[in-house]
């Protein structure tokens, strides 16, 4: 049955009138019109729906909204601050780390979670952390490069 959930998205306190079992992904997309977070598989296997909950990367497609209530949620829309792109967003552009761009939001959010807990990850640490995120266009090497640029550890910028 519908009930009211309090959620805190990108610094705004919001109330949504949905069943608590509704996946967070659909609350964001359908009720809050935050469509930057994408559906890819519905079973937490591709990472397109990744958001931050209390700074941790979460797959919003399998996270019931009730579990995120009153927690700090950050979506891709919350990364740009006062018209200034987040360093990861800048780095993705610089490294040309996208083709169709559908996985990009999830990639940036997963990478943000990594850099929060590990400011200078090694290449192996990046690969391990990002392995649950799929890019079908195959820009993985560029995404690794982008994360290294954002972390300040990039040896070279992709050609």
């Amino acid at each position, binding site marked *: 049955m519908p009930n009211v959930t309090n959620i805190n998205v990108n610094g705004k306190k919001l109330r949504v009138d949905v069943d608590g079992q509704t996946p967070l992904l659909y609350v964001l997309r359908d009720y809050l019109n935050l*469509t930057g977070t994408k559906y890819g598989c519905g079973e937490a296997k*591709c990472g397109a729906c990744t958001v931050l909950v209390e700074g941790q990367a979460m797959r919003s497609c399998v996270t019931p909204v009730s579990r995120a209530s009153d927690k700090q949620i950050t979506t891709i829309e919350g990364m740009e601050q006062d018209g200034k792109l987040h360093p990861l967003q800048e780095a993705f552009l610089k490294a040309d780390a996208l*083709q169709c*761009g*559908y996985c990009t939001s999830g990639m940036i959010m997963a990478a943000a979670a990594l850099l929060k807990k590990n400011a200078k990850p090694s290449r192996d640490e990046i*690969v391990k952390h990002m392995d649950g995120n799929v890019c079908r266009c195959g820009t993985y090497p560029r995404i690794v490069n982008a994360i290294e640029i954002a972390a300040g550890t990039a040896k070279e910028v992709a050609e």
Partner: protein
Amino acid sequence: MNDDLELEIIEQERYELFAGPLYNFNFNRRQFLKAFSGGIALIVPVSNLVAHTLQQDQGESGRRGNERIPDDIGAWIHIDEKGTVSVFTGKVEIGQNIRTSLTQAVAEELHVPLDTVRIVMADTDLTPFDMGTFGSLTTPRMAPQLRKAAAAARETLIALAAEQWKVEPASVRIVNARFVNHDASKSLTLAEVAKGQKLVKTIPAEVATTAAKDWTVAGKPVPKVDGRDFVTGKHQYTTDLRREGMLYGRVVRPSALEAKLVSSDTKAAEAIPGVVVVRDGDFIGVTAPDRATALRAERAIAVHWQAPGQPGNDELFDYLKKNAEAGRGRPVGSIVNGMAAAEKKLSQTYNIAYIAHAPLEPRAAVAEWNDGKLTVWTGTQRPFGVRSELAEAFHIPEEKIRVIVPDTGSGYGGKHTGESAIEAARLARASGKPVKLVWSREEEFNWAYFRPAGVIEVNSGVRKDGTVTAWEFHNYNSGGSGIQVKYDFPNQDIQFHNSKSPLRQGSYRGLAATANHFAREVHMDELAQLVNMDPVQFRLKNIKDARLKAVLEAAADKFGWSSKKTEGRGRGIACGFEKGSYIATAAEVSVDAKTGRVKIERVVESFECGAIVNQLHLHNQVEGAVVQAIGGALFESIQFKNGQILNGKFSQYRLPRFSDMPVIEIVLLDRKDLPSAGAGETPIVGLAPAVANALFDLTGKRIRSMPLT
């Protein structure tokens, strides 16, 4: 370009033939004039975009005034009275970054900054007919024509500026989007020149464009023009669109492929408030005000389906052989003589599995009807083809249908059809409101289409010195793309055989070129082994084509083919040609002794597609193709039985991931003296055979199937 080559390039796979008519002169004069309000327009006729058509003399260059507007408008550039430059093309952006490369081409010829050019793509009401975005054709066909149109627009504008100043056109230049006179004492903006004009021209037959060696905007690594919208999540894909009063749709899917509806009970679903159930023939769907209710309604419908018995993948290859038709091909020389001249002979069979495109954005559509006119937003590579499908499905004229394609979450050849568009439109018509329908991942696996499976048989003969004397090649079902050889084989019999496919199949990035290169290049490796020759030397022995030789040598050099092998690793190489571009791939592999897991450690790929338009995006396309190829080479394979897909979700269908990445080194050969070919497809074909050959080098075990299991 000689005739044979041209034929080869435009030869579509048979399943692309449902792409509808090549010509469709729907965007006619009347429509154009409706869209054209003022300013200056340069039209590219369809005939300029289609091969085998001699360029007609469509107006004399330098002639002033309006000309006859052609019936077959293929694309056009418009400089409106505000000075905005708009390009109208029916091509779609699906991640191959043509929005950027076409912007570069136009900005270069017009001498304006990139951000003054706006590309209007894939909207059947606004853009001229286009048969679809596939076959790597945008760069070789559309870009040079838009470049010509932009150059002609520049000359027209310069003539107008010169007229205002009463000077010779030769003394006027465009510098950074401003017209300046000989000593730069006077200047005019694009808007000031275009204002009050209503001038339409068809691009002249002869118009000089900037030679590739002189490119300053094209040929440069320009980042994605609207990249910011993607990294901020602002870009609206079809799945993100919302219309006033929009409902959510679901379709009740059959129990198996080709199943027929026997009976259904929709009462429980109809009792849910806000739900509309649509039953039309074998189609059953629902709409509801929200997603959860739509899902609940779908599940509340009891359906009984009857499915025919169907073959599974354990009998697939026999089935394809058994149902094969007579082959098609053009023999060269004589196989009998070639075999007689051979000192060694080899016959082998290669199998190719069905694989899924799995674009990360699934099929989706938003449809709405207003006063009998249907508008559909959908992710497709063939907006005009989908419009035809809709016209046919709803028995309404195409003029009453508008298909708009937002820049889409990839396709790889998998989005040529309009299933979701038709379904959303059917639901929208029944409910009287706009309807959004997004396929689930499972629907995408079960109800889209696959890259064709195939069986390939090769019989060959070779002399001890490495000369291949006979080459007989039969491809059953997977397709004819890339089936021809660039090797200098004197006797060839190469045939493609249609067969009956148990699963729905269609285009896939590179089409059958991947399967044909796999069989050919693995077989070449086997022949090299048979005559005890190095695989690179063996290939070079049979190559006369200078461009093929150049990519092969470039890959071998960069790889360090002649240097000592790394302990515990195997290496393999493959080369080829398709759609106007050349490729060679060298791979180094290892096998985990405990788990048996194959790891591709290093890949060197050399690629040559004529003059490079955008180094950055070309590099990205080639690299992306190598990564995507890893899936088909190592693990992607559709499992099926009795009309059921058995591994149709990401938890069961293994995709390439970060940890599968080898070190990838790319060598781009820039041939500024040659026209640019497309690059979205061919770079995918070399990896699988190179890895297969590397695995043999390491283990001594020859694998003749894709995936290599």
